[in-house]
């Protein structure tokens, strides 16, 4: 239950790796900025080239912070779902929260029919990226509410899992209908959104995202005892005094906050949520959530920062969508880990 010295060493090592990845992400980009310039930006802003200053402080830094938040949130959300459902394939999107966010975005981006809605919202003074974020939050929140209401009525987490997947597919079907009736231009905008992006979150949005993600992480960490108990299955958990419904509610709330907000601000980012918990279990060889939650934060963040670095495509002026990179970089990683695992059951 307590962290052994070896685990502390590994956590520290990961923290260092994370810092390195953060610096690497800051120093790479489509524009070449030398390390000297970079240091000047941070330590002697008055002498730094204002363009470099803008790029580093206004573009790269927020992007890196967003990667940190998304990396933590998605991997911890995935860990919670995998434990709650005792299913190694679960990820934060499994309850349909992400699909809900997509539905919200589709509602404002797609189909001529939503023009009127849009106009109304514009009259209310909400516009631009906040509009998309607001819509995504509404969609994610609506699905979360629905899932929570249903979860009060269901005894069993397996049923919950099925219900979650069903809600997700209904939601995505709605999005598909919307796509079907939309212009190619609108569909393109929507598709771009589904590619995910860490680069669009700045200023007030970043603070907002940070607040929600930190709340979600705190709830997750406080529920680590519950999560541990759930490892034994619902019956044992209940026999140890855990109220299954309460635990489910707390965990769903936390995951929804994490996945919903991150999807709303960054678009869907796949893979991290499903893979990082496995990597954390492999590296720390433990089932204790007191260790796994911080481990997931560190690994998820490092991985997402590295993915963002890879997305910069050295020598090119284009950035690949992050959602593509996470899968391309991450999937082989998981396969390698599984192959290296000596014992029969990775899970």
């Amino acid at each position, binding site marked *: *239950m307590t962290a052994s010295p070896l685990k502390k060493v590994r956590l520290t090592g990961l923290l260092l790796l994370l810092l390195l990845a953060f610096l690497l992400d800051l120093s790479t980009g489509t524009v070449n900025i030398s390390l000297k310039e970079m240091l000047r930006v941070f330590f002697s802003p008055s002498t730094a080239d204002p363009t470099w200053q803008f790029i580093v402080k206004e573009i790269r830094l927020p992007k890196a912070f967003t990667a940190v938040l998304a990396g933590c949130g998605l991997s911890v959300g995935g860990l919670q779902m995998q434990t709650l459902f005792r299913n190694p394939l679960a990820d934060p999107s499994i309850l349909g929260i992400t699909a809900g966010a997509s539905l919200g975005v589709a509602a404002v981006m797609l189909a001529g029919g939503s023009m009127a809605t849009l106009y109304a919202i514009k009259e209310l003074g909400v516009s631009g990226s906040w509009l998309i974020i607001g819509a995504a939050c509404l969609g994610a929140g609506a699905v979360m509410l629905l899932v929570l209401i249903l979860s009060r009525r269901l005894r069993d987490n397996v049923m919950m899992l099925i219900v979650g997947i069903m809600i997700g597919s209904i939601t995505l079907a709605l999005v598909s209908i919307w796509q079907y009736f939309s212009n190619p231009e609108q569909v393109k905008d929507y598709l771009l959104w589904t590619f995910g992006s860490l680069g669009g979150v700045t200023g007030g949005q970043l603070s907002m995202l940070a607040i929600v993600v930190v709340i979600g992480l705190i709830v997750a960490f*406080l529920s680590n005892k519950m999560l541990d108990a759930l490892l*034994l299955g619902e019956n044992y958990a209940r026999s140890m*005094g855990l109220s299954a419904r309460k635990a489910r509610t707390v965990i769903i709330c936390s995951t929804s906050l994490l996945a919903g907000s991150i999807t709303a601000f960054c678009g869907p980012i796949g893979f991290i949520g499903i893979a990082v918990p496995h990597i954390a279990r492999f590296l720390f060889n433990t089932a204790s959530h007191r260790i796994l939650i911080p481990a997931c934060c560190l690994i998820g963040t490092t991985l997402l920062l590295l993915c963002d670095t890879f997305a910069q495509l050295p020598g090119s002026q284009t950035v690949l969508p992050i959602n593509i990179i996470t899968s391309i970089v991450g999937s082989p990683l998981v396969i390698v880990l599984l192959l290296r695992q000596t014992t029969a059951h990775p899970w």
Partner: protein
Amino acid sequence: MVSAATTLLTARNLQTGYRSGAKKIVVAGGLPELLLQSGQLICLLGPNGSGKSTLLRTLGGLQPPLDGEIHLGGTDRWTPATLARKISLVLTDRVRGNNLTVDSLVALGRYPWSGWLGGLNATDMACIEWAIRVTGIGSLRDRKIHTLSDGQNQKVMLARALAQDTPILMLDEPTAHLDLPSRILLMRLLHQLARETRKAILLSTHELDLALQVADEVWLLQSGGQLRSGAPEDLVLNGSFEYAFGGEEVVFDKGSGNFLIYTPQDKPVRITGEGLTLFWTRRALRRAGFEPVADAGLHIRIAERDGQPIWLVEHQGQTREYGSIQKLLQALA
């Protein structure tokens, strides 16, 4: 004599079963008052489908009773959290890999007692150590759950329940999947625990002979939901076992406390002899379709020659001699 037993759990007018929407599916209806007393080992016996697990889960608080009340420590209003400090369970649910080590699994038993964040204090650690010691799983501490054998796994789950440090311990078919020595060892351990820790232990099992040996009380659940309880010997003598398990195909032998695999047939035989040889000869003849009776035309006499048993078959005035039970059976066939 041990100190006076205190009643830890009382269940009255209990009706177990499931709710499916508004519909009630009753598994066991007319249950008598059930008492769990400290220091007692109670075996819950019954044929398949009689509702042993359902009763155990109901008493253990995993599923609500359809009717009736369960008093625990003087109250029938308990929360999952208070219940968890009264009753610990060993279930048939298989705990899969999960990367869990034996150590941390046993430590999870402290869940009802540990702090909000799951931190463990000295008392917790002592309980864990004790549970690991009495179950003898010290050598397994760092093993992953999924690498354990069934017997080891059962011991670990028992250790987890013991770490939970509750006055009542319930086990659902703890001897399933275990080989005979492990079954005996587990039963003996439970018997000792009941004596030494004054816990009330309720376990469901199919191990009739073991149950008859270790149980202070037997709850005999019949298909249909009737339950007879009492000292195992009383239940044997008053025919409850035959009533509960008996049918045309299955026969309970009061003489041995066992079920007979072969139904007796109409081939009377008189057997004379003594000791173990007599016991095993009777078994063998039963298997071959003979019914030992006081007087019959066929008489098998067990004698001894040079320290070895021999079997003398007397039939219609002739006597033949055989050197082993196998040869005897071949001759009779």
